[in-house]
């Protein structure tokens, strides 16, 4: 999706994709099973509700503190990384970020790139971009490898191939890798391992994301279970890390609470198999590790979210995916229906800053505001409140000042606005309201049996014979 620049077509078709997804029985089953699994795993990691709540508050405070001095921390991060021998690059847009990566690739005449998991590189559509420049990009995270093999996009930020079951992966491997069909997961993983092993040392460049960039020490921290992240950041002669400008934390010790929240919230693990802290390229006396390490800091709309103190909280996110695991909407439609790199609740609040509200206009409405996401968010992003705020930005007149967001007023409709003004008049005038109640109850027979979207799944609601206003007045007298 190169929607950032040209067409917002994919996010706009959200309703159609959602329609298709809820009618795909296999997809519904795969997601329900996967989400139930992940919710149970997380719950088991937080047996002490009090510890959880205090740790979430702590996580919130660490992230908010980092954001409250973000420009300063980015500069400290840059200075310390530079001192450690890491080259730091800045990009306002994904185009700029891709151009930076391409320059590095070109300088090394690189032909093969191996990638650890990176959602920012998905945001950049780096694979597509580099392939357009004759460079092979191979995903090495098993889930990412599977979706790349199937010409798909990740459907979850932590578990990219969560929409597929073992049988579907077996067919894919059988077709694309020409191996015997097997649904044995151990065997499938070994096929992936064997396929990718040589690629790690053939690659000219390794690309990774970053979980936390530590300003104090000039370090990049990555978590993973497979070892492909360590491979990608250690074996090729050049390592390029790409990350958003919000990922910085102030001090090394700040990662302790965030790490605990991240792995327990994401996959229900006390810790991942590997925590990989990179503080520079190979030194003269060292025998492995990349000769060059680059960090690309990407804005891509984050500074827009940052400009408003309510929306800024979006940038607390540590990308654990717990909000999607607990979301009844995501569970029903899966990640692809969103048509965005980041699906689920966090996707709904972060993507409008990346693509503009016009391209994402339906996303803020695609929530019952049930609050499950906000309840589990390890850094306490008030996701429902921000969704509500985005709805407000969506229906404000496009030219109204102050202008907070690209695409403000994308759902502005004079007719809808008048409807709500009429609603306001009705509900601020007791006399009108009571007349309306009388009319609705006395004329309830006139309500048609088919009233649009409501009656697709429900019978039409029938007002009672008399309103509570009337019953209460009879019983209690006028008050």
């Amino acid at each position: 999706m190169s929607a950032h620049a040209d067409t917002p077509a994919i996010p706009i078709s959200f309703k159609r994709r959602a329609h298709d997804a809820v009618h795909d029985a296999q997809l519904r089953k795969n997601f329900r099973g996967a989400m139930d699994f992940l919710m149970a795993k997380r719950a088991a990691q937080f047996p002490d509700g009090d510890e959880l709540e205090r740790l979430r508050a702590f996580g919130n405070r660490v992230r908010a503190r980092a954001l409250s001095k973000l420009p300063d921390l980015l500069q400290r991060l840059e200075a310390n990384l530079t001192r450690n021998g890491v080259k730091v690059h800045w990009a306002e847009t994904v185009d700029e970020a891709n151009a930076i990566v391409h320059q590095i690739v070109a300088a090394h005449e690189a032909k093969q790139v191996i990638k650890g998991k990176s959602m920012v590189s998905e945001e950049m559509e780096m694979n597509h971009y580099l392939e357009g420049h004759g460079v092979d990009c191979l995903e090495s995270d098993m889930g990412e490898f599977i979706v790349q093999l199937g010409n798909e996009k990740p459907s979850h930020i932590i578990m990219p191939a969560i929409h597929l079951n073992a049988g579907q992966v077996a067919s894919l491997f059988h077709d694309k890798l020409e191996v015997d069909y097997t649904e044995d997961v151990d065997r499938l993983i070994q096929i992936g391992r064997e396929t990718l092993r040589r690629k790690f040392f053939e690659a000219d460049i390794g690309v990774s994301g970053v979980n936390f960039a530590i300003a104090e020490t000039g370090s990049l921290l990555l978590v993973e279970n497979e070892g492909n992240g360590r491979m990608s950041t250690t074996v090729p002669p050049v390592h390029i890390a790409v990350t958003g400008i919000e990922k910085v934390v102030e001090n090394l010790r700040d990662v302790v609470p965030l790490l605990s929240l991240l792995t327990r919230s994401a996959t229900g693990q006390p810790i991942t198999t590997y925590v990989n802290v990179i503080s520079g390229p190979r030194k003269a006396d060292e025998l492995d590790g990349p000769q060059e390490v680059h960090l690309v800091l990407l804005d891509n709309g984050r500074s827009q979210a940052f400009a408003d103190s309510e929306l800024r909280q979006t940038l607390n996110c540590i990308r654990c995916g717990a909000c999607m695991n607990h979301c009844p909407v995501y569970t029903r439609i899966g990640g692809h229906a969103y048509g965005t790199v980041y699906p689920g609740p966090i996707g709904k609040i972060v993507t409008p800053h990346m693509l503009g509200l016009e391209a994402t206009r339906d996303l803020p409405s695609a929530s019952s505001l049930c609050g499950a996401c906000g309840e589990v968010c390890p850094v306490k992003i008030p996701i429902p409140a921000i969704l509500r705020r985005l709805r407000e930005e969506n229906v404000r007149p496009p030219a109204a000042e102050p202008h907070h967001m690209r695409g403000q007023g994308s759902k502005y409709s004079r007719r809808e606005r008048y409807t709500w003004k009429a609603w306001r008049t009705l509900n601020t005038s007791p006399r009108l309201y009571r007349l309306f109640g009388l009319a609705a109850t006395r004329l309830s027979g006139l309500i048609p049996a088919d009233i649009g979207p409501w009656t697709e799944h429900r019978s039409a609601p029938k007002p009672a014979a008399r309103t509570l206003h009337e019953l209460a007045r009879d019983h209690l007298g006028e008050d």
Partner: protein
Amino acid sequence: MSSPHSSVATPQATRLAPPLAGARNYPAQKPAEVYLFGTCVLDLFFPEAGMDAIRLLEREGIRVHFPQGQSCCGQPAYTSGYTDEAREVARAQLALFSHDWPVVVPSGSCAGMFRHHYAELFHDEPATLRQVEALAARTYELAEFLLEVCRIQLDDRGSPIKVALHTSCSARREMGTHVHGRSLLSQLGQVERVDHDHESECCGFGGTFCVRMPDISGAMVRDKTAALAGAGADAVVSADCGCLLNINGAFEKQQQSLRGEHLASFLLRRTGGKSDGVQS
């Protein structure tokens, strides 16, 4: 909960999450008089539940006042992004509760609107904000009020029955209504509460969500009704009329016999009270 803005020095200061809410302090004495805020959905579609709430409160020796000027808490406009319209409707409700009696709301999401969101609506009107904070402090969801303020003792007079309890999401998360509802049901000796599959999951109502995203909402309410029907319950009870409208509409469309009932009506009937019984 105080205004999210009150803790920050300037409007652009980076926000922290509000401090962890401690347990709510309840008055030691049962009040002599209360206001009932009926809510708009209940007013039109479940008025008998409102009357049953009044009867339950009266049985506790409390005089109930129902301000006839009340309409809606403002939530539909608020959650749709029409903040100005929501604020004006909220302002009209604020004027109704001039005595300092508790305000009892037989719907958790509307109670949550009073308790948590009015402060956001009026954050830059200091005088109104004080009024809002005072209102928030004396607003109770009905189940919470019966349990924690009235310290009600229910005497079950019904025959054995299995009941599934559905709690609205905002009632659960903003008011703790699921805990209060379970506690009240547990006082009824012949009532066995059965859990339904994914009990804490949303029924798909979500105010205007159900008409803006009919496919997703429809999938959610189908799953919810299937879970309730599959729980082996003889009755479905909820303390939120939005959910009841959604769930009952789906049950009816599916031609199932099960219907959800408001907790107030269920409690009154089980304890020998006489409900109006004008089921919609």
